[in-house]
Each structure stands twice: as C-alpha cells, then as structure tokens.
C-alpha cells in the first residue's frame, strides 16, 4: 500500500497534562485522571466517575481578553493544535492553503448550546445572548483554530461516536492522498457537559459504582500534524511516526447500542494491519479500545488474543482508563503512539532499536469500529 503520511508534531491538553510530552509521561507512569464525581456534578445520575481537566486555565497560552471569545473546547483545541504545529515547525504563513484541519468531537458546542437554550426557553428568545450562538456549532473549535492559526486548507469536524478522532484521521489521510492539502492537523476535542452526561447516563452508557459498568466521560484536546511524505521531506521535517494503515467496520445497530460483534472487531483490526502491510507479531505496542463497557471489552480481548496468537503479547496502554472515554479519546491514543514511537529512551518499546509499530483500536456505540497502525518513520 502507499504510505498515508508522516506525523511531524503532536499536542495535548488533557487532565493528564497540558503538553503531549507530559501527557505521555504520566500515561506511561500509570497515572489516571479518573476521579469520583462531586455531588454537584453527579446530581441524580447513576454515574459515579468523571475525568475532567480540573483547574484548567487558557493562560498563558491564550491571553485573557482573547480567551473570553472561545468556549472551553475551543481553548483546548487551540492550545493542542498550536503545540503540534510548533513541534512540527510548519511555516503556515508560507502557504496557508497547504494546511487544513480535521477534528473529531462528540460534545463541542454543548456548553454554548445549553446556555443559549437556558435563556431562550426560560426567559425569552429575544433575551438569548447572540454571543453564544456561533459557538453552539460543533465545528467551533476547529474553526477557531483555523482562524487563530490562519489555515486556509480543508476544515472539517466529524462526529461518529467514540472513534470520531480516528475517523478524522481517515478523512485527513484522504485529503492528503487526493492532493487537497499537504498537511492536516488531526485529532479530537471534547468538553464535559452536565446535560449531555444526563443523556448518556439515561441510556446506561456511564460507569456506576461497579468498575467496568460503563464509560467514564473525559475531556481535552489532542492533535497531530499529518503531512504527505514528499511535503515533510521537502521541508526537512523530523517525523515522529508514520501513519501506515487504517481499517474500519460497521455493524448495523441502534445509535446508542454497543454491538460487541467479534467479526466486526476482527475486520477493522485486520484491515488496518493489511493496509499497513504489517503482521500481528510486528505489533509491539497496542492501544486497546477498552473503555469499561464490559461486553465490548470482553469481545475485544477475545478477538485480539486470536489476532496476536503465537506472537509475544504487545505492551498494552489503555488510554481511556487514564483519561476517560470521549469522541476525542482516539486523538489521545494517536498522540501517545507518536510520542512512544519517537521516544529516544525506548519507552514502551523494550527492544529499543529496529522498526517500532503500534496498533490503535477505537470502537464505539452505534456499530462504529476503527483501527489504525502507526510505525517508525523510516
């Protein structure tokens, strides 16, 4: 297959750290941002836990007078994307049409939407604050990034359940292969929202007192810069990792039902490995989709033990056990995989030298299954 692109920079704003390096370091150390909900957060939910970025301030990255214009998700996204562009040393101004953005989200706009409706419904439509309306759209974070960083290239936001960020990665790789852009910021952003939490709680998606009784909702933003191979080489970039393959599968089911179908999991994973020309035994680092939904986690474990049969078990990092589940979580997996592949100290790659290869699984409700393979750049 043809290479899908090189990743030349990464950024993260998460409850496990405000930079991709800190996020990666704490992830490897086994830290978790998951904590019990406060009484106020919990209200009368069945859910008991959450992974929020407590104490987040947009300063010093975004000056206070400017930060007021952005909602929480946009603040997360601007900081994470700026980090990725800075690490990649991509000179946007030299050719702003060459670079775009594809972001996955499940919650962007939720805060502004709730505030706008609160006034509209409880007071009057005429009292509703016009300031909030433009931020009610889910594409606000990606678009605020495009305005802040002056990107003229493709700009999309994708919502497709938990694997939204991997879906954005797929969109971005198509944007590069079709010549629409030479570089794409790719990732995910989510902000925790009390009303949305009620919705997911009601459909039984959230973790209660018992472990593995559902997901724990997280928040944050994750971004990488994906470039065409030629583009990255021409400007002498130092890539962190190569996107080698993407696989997917769909199961026809209700939008908020988990469909733990082994055949779909296997199809997504094997098509990603085939796309990358990678054998299962080449995978040394695995990011499972595991998110606390018991039936899905069990199905994934069973399928993957078959996939990895006869090979040494890869080192496993369950990112969602550290930062919770969200549409952006796949972005966290991608950032962690890139940092690990580029880790000069070896990190989770015990052997040190040689080709490094990581597999990412990202499965969601509604029958949405994606997987991706990242590897050493050369």
């Amino acid at each position, binding site marked *: 297959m043809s290479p899908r692109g090189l990743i030349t920079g990464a950024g993260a704003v998460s409850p496990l750290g405000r930079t991709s390096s800190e996020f990666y370091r704490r992830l490897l150390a086994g830290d978790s941002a998951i904590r019990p909900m406060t009484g106020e957060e919990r209200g009368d939910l069945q859910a008991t836990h959450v992974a929020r970025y407590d104490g987040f301030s947009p300063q010093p990255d975004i000056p206070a007078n400017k930060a007021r214009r952005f909602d929480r998700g946009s603040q997360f996204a601007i900081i994470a994307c700026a980090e990725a562009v800075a690490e990649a040393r991509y000179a946007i101004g030299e050719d702003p049409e060459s670079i775009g953005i594809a972001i996955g989200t499940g919650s962007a706009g939720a805060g502004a939407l709730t505030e706008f409706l*609160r006034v509209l*419904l409880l007071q009057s*439509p005429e009292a509703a604050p016009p300031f909030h309306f*433009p931020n009610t759209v889910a594409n606000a974070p990606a*678009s605020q990034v495009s305005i802040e960083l002056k990107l003229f290239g*493709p700009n999309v936001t994708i*919502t497709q359940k938990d694997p939204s960020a991997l879906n954005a990665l797929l969109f971005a790789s198509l944007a590069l292969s079709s010549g629409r852009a030479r570089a794409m910021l790719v990732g995910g952003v989510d902000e925790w929202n009390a009303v949305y939490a009620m919705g997911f709680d009601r459909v039984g998606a959230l973790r209660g007192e018992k472990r593995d009784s559902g997901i724990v909702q997280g928040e944050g933003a994750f971004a990488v810069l994906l470039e065409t191979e030629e583009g990255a080489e021409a400007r002498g970039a130092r890539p962190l990792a190569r996107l080698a393959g993407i696989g997917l599968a769909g199961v*026809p089911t209700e*939008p908020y039902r988990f469909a733990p179908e082994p055949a779909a999991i296997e199809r997504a994973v094997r098509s990603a490995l085939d796309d990358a020309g990678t054998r299962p035994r080449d995978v040394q680092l695995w990011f499972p989709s595991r998110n606390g939904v018991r039936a899905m986690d069990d199905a994934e474990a069973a399928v993957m033990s078959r996939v990895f049969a006869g090979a040494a078990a890869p080192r496993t990092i369950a990112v969602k056990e550290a930062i919770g589940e969200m549409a952006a979580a796949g972005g966290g997996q991608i950032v962690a995989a890139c940092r690990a592949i580029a880790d000069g100290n070896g990190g989770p790659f015990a052997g040190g030298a040689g080709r490094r290869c990581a597999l990412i699984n990202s499965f969601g409700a509604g029958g949405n299954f994606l997987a991706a393979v990242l590897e050493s750049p050369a």
Partner: protein
Amino acid sequence: MSKPRRVVVTGMGAVTSIGTDLESFWENLLAGTCGIRPLRLFDPAAYRTQTAAEIARIPDDFLTDAEKRRMSRADRMGLAAAREAIDRSGLDLGTEDPTRIGVVLGGGTSGLLDSEAFFDRYLRGQPARPSRVLNHLPDAITDRVAQRHGLQGVKSTITTACSSSANAMGYAHDAIVAGLADVVITGGSDVLARLTYGGFNSLRSVDPDPCRPFDRDRRGLSIGEAAGILVFEEKGRAERRGAPILAEFLGYGVTSDAFHMTAPDPTGAAGARTIRAALHAAGVNAEDVDYVNAHGTATPQNDSAETAAIKVALGDRARQIPVSSIKSMIGHCLCASGAIEAVATVLTIRDGVVPPTIHYENADPACDLDYVPNVSRVLTVDVALSNSFAFGGNSSVVVFASERARPPA
C-alpha cells in the same frame, strides 16, 4: 497505474417544504413555489419573526409507531429520503456486499427539536427524558440509515454547520475514489429548531418575510428544513449494472476562510479560494461552468460576498452564466442545505432547466449577476457548481457534470 475511480449519482431522495419526494420537490422548484409560510412546528409568537420553510407531513409511513416514537424528526426525514434514493438507484441491497456500502452524512441541528422538549422540561425542573438529549448528536441519523439498510461499510458524519452535507458528499467521493467503498449513501437531514431559529434571530439575520436572495432589499434568511440523500457509486460498477446515471460528481473544494466565525470575507477572496479548489479538483476550467447553484442565503453580507467570490473565481464567465438560490423557495436548510441544493443541481443537469431565484424584484449594484429572477429557464447545463458557506468559515463547493460533458476515460 490503474485508471482513477470515478463517482456518479445513481439515486436521489428529497423531503422538503415544497415536496416530500424527489419529483414533486423538483416540479415545485421549477414552478417557483414558495415553501416559506407561518411557522407551526413550535410557537413563534415570542420570536422576532414567525415564518419558516416547514415540512407539513413527513412521509414516514414505512416506520412502525414504536420506531417513530424512538426516532427524532430528523431521523424520520433522513430515513424517508434515503429510502427513496436507494429505491430510485435500483440497488438490490439484498444481493450486495454490505461491507462495500457506506453512509456519510452531514448534520448538526439534527434531532435538536426533540432534544429541546427535554431541555424545556429539565430547565423548569420538571420530569424529563434525558435520552432525548442524544437526538441532537448528528451521527444518530447516519447509524440509523446504516441500520435500516444493513450497511457495514465506512460510516461518518460531518458537522461543519451549513456546509456539513456538502462536505459529506466530498468525503463520500474520496472514500469511493480511494477504494474504501463502492457505494456511499450521502447527503443530510436537518430540522427546524428553537435554537437555530432563535439564534439567527438573535443575530438579526432573519427576514420576517420570505427571504429574497440577491435582491437590493434583502433583509436576511428564511430558515427551512429538509432531507436530501444521494447515492454515490463507482462509475464502472454503476455502468455494469445498468444503473440510472444522473450525473457525475467531479470533485469538490473544501477550505477555511480563517476570517471570522460568522461573517464572510466581503472581498470574495475566501469564497473564490474554495471555488478555485473545487474547479482544480474537478479538472475543469471556469469557462466550462454552465451554472452556479448559489449559497444565496439572502443576508446582506453573504450575497454580496458570494457574488464577489464568483466573479473573482470565474472571471468573465461569471457574467455569462445563471446563478440561482433555491433558498428563496425552501429556505436555508442549514446542515442539509448542501445536500438538497446538490439534488437540485443534479436535476438541473438531468433536465436542462435552471430553477429560479424567487422574490427577486430590485437589482443591487453589489449583486450584479444573472440570478434567474422568478422564472425557471430552459438551458443545457453540463457542468454545475453548488456553493456552501458556513459559520466558522467552513466553505465547500461541489462540482457535478453531465455524462455528455465527460467522455468515458
């Protein structure tokens, strides 16, 4: 290298305020029928304006009562349009490989109207059904279309406000060209809701009367709702099965204005970048373009900026071709507008008739193109653009062509 895969439209479905199936929508569009009327879906008394392009009755008889209760208004509209599109394509899904058929839709408002019923009760401290909150998430319709038709291929939902469903078509195209799928059900479904109705009113962007795109006295948009679904199919495959080929999707341009969250670049430079990107991707020149289906919202800012963009991108050609806005009849259907306008654009190519811009009375010096005022026009159209611009500066332009325009590769 193997020949590049090409993408054709083999079926379409439409649910709109002026017709809830493809041909009645088209007939009314060509007749210049206005679907913008007093709003009844919710009480508009407290809003600045009281009109909208509302669908009187959704053709959802194929759903059981239990399904209807579970689904949002946008789900039901989207499923009805998808059903029509698949029927018209002649695809026999029972005999197809379901892993090669995907669903890529655009959404955003989606089922928000149903979520608002929850918000209203919840915010007043009354018992409410929180699961209704999730109706607002646009991926629900995508999952439901795949569920209903047993599809197992690529699934995605683009949410870029008013360009959502235009970008969805672009993603669907790229997925087929890359070999990820052979068929993709694409388009979008978006409903009237208090949030968007109140939101555009709060920005003073809504005309109290039916909107008048490109007219000197335009005062803003009319909000509408619609579902427009298109079946995109790999061309060789469509030909082999003798499918009805309505048009080819030649390509699309997707860009960021990087200008402002709600205002267009008044010089037209940003919009022109999108149009140029679309022409480049489609492999056609400005001289090849026969018709532009405009975004044409009827806000003072959009229509002059869009006119400028068309002139910058198409040069002399801009003054030689018709440019019309069907929003004058079906309102601005927000996240579904790109899809329903693409449906109209394909029908324009199929039948050689350009739909009009109605309510057009007085020329504006800042809008000096041929907007096909009030009466549809017979004209052979081989290559057509459809523009979509959005909050956030998310711009997208799609390019369709007739079979006549593109000889076999």
